[in-house]
């Protein structure tokens, strides 16, 4: 597959993925643009792979998880953290939209790697093995990242339901 064809097919999906893991569309745009420029330079090699998309996704993920974006990621998390704090008071449990927004905010404050694993599972429908490949870790690490993320989200969910006096 040629580079231009790859971009035409996958750019939108890649932006969606990057936005979901970064929780910031501008950071996501920067990362995707830069990664694609780098990928283009060695497309001969990447294009010949079995799964170029998985490889490019790995580049995007590594870039986000790298030291470079640590500060940006923390600022985004702090911002979203504020939203989480305010969420229970404002949210109406009967409102599906509010429910979803509250979950979105909680995902945004997870550690970066846990969130990446979560997005790969629930947005990209990746297997443990594929997630391990993208994150550059073992499958058992993938499973522990995912279970920790789910544990955190569940605890928050329970706490929130209790505050609102409902059962979910």
């Amino acid at each position, binding site marked *: 597959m040629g580079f231009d064809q790859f971009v035409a097919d996958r750019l939108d999906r890649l932006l969606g993925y990057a936005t*979901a893991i970064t929780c910031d569309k501008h950071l996501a745009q920067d990362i995707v643009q830069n990664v694609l420029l780098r990928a283009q330079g060695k497309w001969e090699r990447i294009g010949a792979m079995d799964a170029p998309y998985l490889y490019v996704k790995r*580049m995007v993920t590594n870039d986000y998880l790298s030291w470079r974006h640590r500060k940006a990621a923390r600022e985004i998390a702090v911002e979203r953290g504020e939203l989480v704090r305010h969420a229970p008071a404002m949210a109406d449990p009967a409102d599906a939209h509010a429910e*979803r927004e509250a*979950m979105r905010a909680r995902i945004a404050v997870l550690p970066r790697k846990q969130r990446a694993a*979560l997005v790969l599972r*629930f947005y990209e429908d990746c297997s443990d093995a594929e997630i391990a490949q993208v994150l550059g870790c073992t499958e058992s690490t993938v499973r522990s990242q995912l279970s920790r993320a789910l544990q955190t989200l569940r605890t928050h969910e329970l706490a929130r339901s209790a505050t609102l006096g409902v059962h979910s």
Partner: protein
Amino acid sequence: MNDLIRQAIAAEADERVDSRTVLANLHKARKAKPFGMIIGVATLTVAAAAAAVVIPTTIKKTEAAPPANAPVSGAQNVLLIGTDDDRRADAIVLARFETDGSASIISLPRDIHAGTGQDRLSGLFKDDPRKLTAAVEDLTGTKVDHYAAVAMSEFGRVATAVGGIEVCLNNYVMDEYSGAHFMAGKNTLVGEQALQFLRQRHGLPEGDLDRVKRQQAFLTSFAAKITKDKAPELLQLLERSIEYDEGWDLLQFASRFQGPVKVRSATLPIGEEVQRDGIQVYAPDPDQSKRFVEDQFGGGGPTETGCVN
């Protein structure tokens, strides 16, 4: 709960920017300068060090009258800084130039904590060069007489201008981030290869510390290649991107260089990796640093030579 997670993530992903905007940017970047946008544009110690070496050599050459009677003042300590596209100091080297033209350099890892909060050495220069020189003086107990800074992006052309820079690698490397792709053993770097060699940080056993060693290897090899014939061309390449302190009398400084420069290099030992205000930094260790610098500048201490990772 899984459905809720799925919906939440999809909602987050829906916030993405319009892919047509990105596509347009990609086309623009491709036409303008494909290399310019690469992130993590690391910089090299070398650029700065070379600047301090090259410029004086050149000025001396272009002066009509030989500086026969020009007094060579004592050894001078110069802080050499390689800056990235954001004017961050990515490569920081404390160099001592002896009166005979030889030099001893000590690389200072850029992630050493300095000042308060999240400040690292790398960020101080952009703020004010004097903040960086003051922090280095505090850390090393050594007076910084002058500083010179160079944009690292010039160094591909510099390597080409001297007919390639020879370096030796311990292992075969291939790194997607920097584009570095080298065989084990001797490599002669020209053009972009020089930047790739100097920028690679991923996939190295010691990360940024290995990169520091690469910068030293590059610098040593480069300094040995500077000749009077090549100097004018090098100066032309570098002069627009060099910045140095106003009080520096380069002519006088220059009179100590008689030919290719011999360089001894070492890396400042770092303290523990610690968290400061949420970021990872190396704790400064002034006592150890002072002893090390004293040893190294006094002619003792370890020297790094040979092949690098």
